[in-house]
């Protein structure tokens, strides 16, 4: 029964995202002529379904364990002191700390080869749209979701007060990947947009724009990039598996082992 609800929730989320993003991608396209059912659409659909039906639960189970462990090591007096602050102050602290952590965490994903192995799954998309946003290795999800929630886990900020921010952040993360170009003028220095994030997906893996929701961290640390046109190509230069299972397994076992395994399987 629970699985049926999960299935229904997944289906409704899928329909909602189609209704939300497809008209935008048709009316304000970044890449004109990009079809809805473009190359690797099925692969990204696998990621979408995998994330909603399977990996999402695994990620949150791991994070629950992690959160419990952190609760045990942080002195309760310290948490009580933080929680005695005004709610609005806690909300601001939580957002700034999350943004800072995810900025540097994301930058490290592009610098450290081990982290890049998993993060390159997300960057392997050669066509960007709302569905491609879901292309993410489960271990990469644990890393990013863990980092972004770390201040809340450690400091015990009440997440309920951030409900609006969390919901907005979730939907905006999908929007910035969509095939939309909608210049927002000076607001682009305050709020992230597809025109900025598409450059982050440029073939050059250190292209910049590591922040997601607000580019303030990029401006602060000098990684803000905003040319007045779309990048010629997005994706990665490395040779990487093109199927779902391969993209999940290869970062874990390594390219050479995965290639050997595939060779054996073919024989």
């Amino acid at each position, binding site marked *: 029964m629970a699985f049926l609800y999960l299935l229904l929730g997944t289906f409704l989320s899928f329909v909602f995202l189609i209704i939300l993003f497809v008209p935008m991608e048709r009316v304000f396209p970044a890449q004109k002529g990009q079809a809805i059912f473009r190359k690797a659409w099925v692969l990204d659909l696998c990621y979408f379904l995998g994330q909603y039906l399977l990996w999402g639960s695994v990620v949150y189970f791991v994070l629950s364990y992690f959160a419990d462990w952190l609760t045990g090591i942080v002195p309760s007096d310290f*948490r*009580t002191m933080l929680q005695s602050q005004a709610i609005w102050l806690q909300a601001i602290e939580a957002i700034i700390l999350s943004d800072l952590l995810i900025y540097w965490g994301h930058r490290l994903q592009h610098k450290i080869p081990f982290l890049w192995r998993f993060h390159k799954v997300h960057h392997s998309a050669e066509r960007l749209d709302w569905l491609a946003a879901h292309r993410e290795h489960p271990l990469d999800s644990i890393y990013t979701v863990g980092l972004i929630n770390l201040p809340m886990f450690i400091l015990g900020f009440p997440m309920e007060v951030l*409900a609006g921010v969390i919901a907005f952040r979730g939907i905006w993360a999908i929007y910035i990947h969509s095939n939309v170009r909608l210049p927002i003028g000076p607001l682009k220095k305050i709020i992230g947009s597809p025109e900025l994030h598409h450059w982050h997906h440029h073939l050059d893996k250190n292209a910049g724009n590591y922040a997601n929701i607000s580019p303030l961290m990029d401006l602060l640390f000098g990684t803000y990039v905003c040319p007045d046109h779309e990048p010629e190509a997005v994706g990665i230069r490395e040779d990487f598996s093109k199927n779902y299972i391969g993209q999940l397994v290869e970062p874990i076992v390594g390219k050479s082992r995965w290639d050997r395994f595939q060779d054996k399987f073919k024989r």
Partner: protein
Amino acid sequence: MIQNAIKVLTLGFFISMITGFVMYRTGAFDSTTASSALHTSPNGGELNNANQAPNSTGNLEINQQNTNEIMPSSKSLAPAIDLKKYEQEQKKELRMSSSKSMMLPNEFKIDVEDIKKEYVSSSKSMLHPIKVEPTASKLFKEDPEQIAKLQPKFSPTASDTKQDITSDPTKDHSIKSGEKEEIRKTSGVYWGLVGLGVLGIVFVGIGIFVYFRYKLR
């Protein structure tokens, strides 16, 4: 002209949907919050994780559990036997012992003293009748000696004093933060929601203004 109208309508629809979604997730259309208690992946994670979300305020939950143990929710001044609980326990016992009933026939014997010991849960609430019962506290103000006669002698322990019921329940750390939100919601105007609505309207306004300013010029 038609193209521009389509663009404005699409943008308006998009902004309204996002505003609606955010308001829905903050519980604006329901009595309970539908919000996810976790930030999703910045790469575009799933939108709904409410059922599996870890609790970031774990220590508060522990306090809540302790509260249940220290002070039951019953405000009754008289000791009461929790018969339902006792019945359930007995049923469990019967089921468990069926295979070895021949060996342990005494298991079915009901020890009344044991019942009292285990199931007289509200006896603990007797420790704080003044704090819980408004009539008693009124009496206490008027005639403390009279109340002292009615009550058994008792000196509160350190842990008990922590469980005092404050005048403002939202400041009570033994209440889970989710429950605090409920208390806030029922105790007056929910300003957070009003603020969010205003923010939504401002956001829509800015979006349309920016669009007209930079795209349709």
